């Protein structure tokens, strides 16, 4: 089983850590670097600041948990999506922009890959985990809208990371494609 996490920022890194129990190869794709503000909301530690996020998470998984992972410190593009995602049994979208989500979704449909999306609102009060067949990427209300880089939204990110991990584990163990909606007062199954 090969699981490719696309985007390992707030949601992706949290979900990956909660998938460390799986008998699967965890593959991490992210071109970005860890900044000091990221340690407030993402699963990175101080020693990872300055490193590529995919590489940093791979090292943390190895050093803290003895879990092996593969890291690809590149931006997902039309040119490399097949190479990065072609061997995946499951794709996990935790990107922070509509264009990358759409690129991944288009590839998943074309290649017949299972794809689950995790996405949160800009104010950090709401999120969805939804399988590709029921997901439409949302655009930002305003271009350059603030994202979940600081620690303000950490509690919701934690719940979302757990919800994503649970949906992944249900899929792997039982083939169930469960959708959930996460708000501050509930984690609600919506399909599957």
């Amino acid at each position, binding site marked *: 089983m090969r699981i490719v996490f696309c985007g390992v920022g707030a949601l992706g890194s949290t979900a990956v850590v909660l998938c460390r129990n799986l008998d699967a190869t965890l593959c991490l794709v992210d071109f970005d670097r860890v900044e000091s503000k990221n340690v407030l909301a993402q699963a990175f530690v101080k020693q990872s600041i300055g490193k590529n996020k995919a590489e940093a998470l791979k090292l943390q998984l190895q050093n803290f948990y003895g879990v092996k992972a593969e890291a690809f410190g590149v931006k997902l593009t039309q040119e490399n999506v097949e190479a990065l995602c072609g061997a995946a049994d499951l794709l996990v979208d935790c990107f*922070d922009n509509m264009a990358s989500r759409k690129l991944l979704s288009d590839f998943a449909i074309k290649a017949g890959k299972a794809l689950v999306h995790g996405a949160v*609102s800009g104010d950090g009060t709401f999120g969805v985990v939804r399988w590709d067949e029921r997901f439409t990427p949302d655009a930002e209300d305003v271009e350059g809208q603030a994202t979940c880089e600081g620690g303000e939204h950490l509690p*919701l990110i934690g719940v979302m990371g757990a919800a994503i991990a649970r949906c992944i584990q249900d899929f792997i163990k039982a083939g169930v494609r469960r959708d959930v909606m996460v708000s501050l007062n509930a984690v609600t199954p919506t399909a599957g």
Partner: protein
Amino acid sequence: MATLNITINGMSADYPLEVDYALSDADVRRIAVEVVRSGDVAGLRLPHLGDGAFDHYVVDRFRGPQGGERIYLRPKVPFGA
């Protein structure tokens, strides 16, 4: 019969929609403003909610497990990483 689920300020709740016609997205947003203002949705009473409070919200429509329509009015979710 449909169920409208409204999420605002991080709170989420269901409201039964007893209408026998197809609702447009604009209908859903208008109804949501009214029922949240009036306090008809448990836990979501906001008396001073503006008319355009849900203008940028997304309307999702699904079939529930028992076959009824479930309509979700929710904030956009552009972010992840």
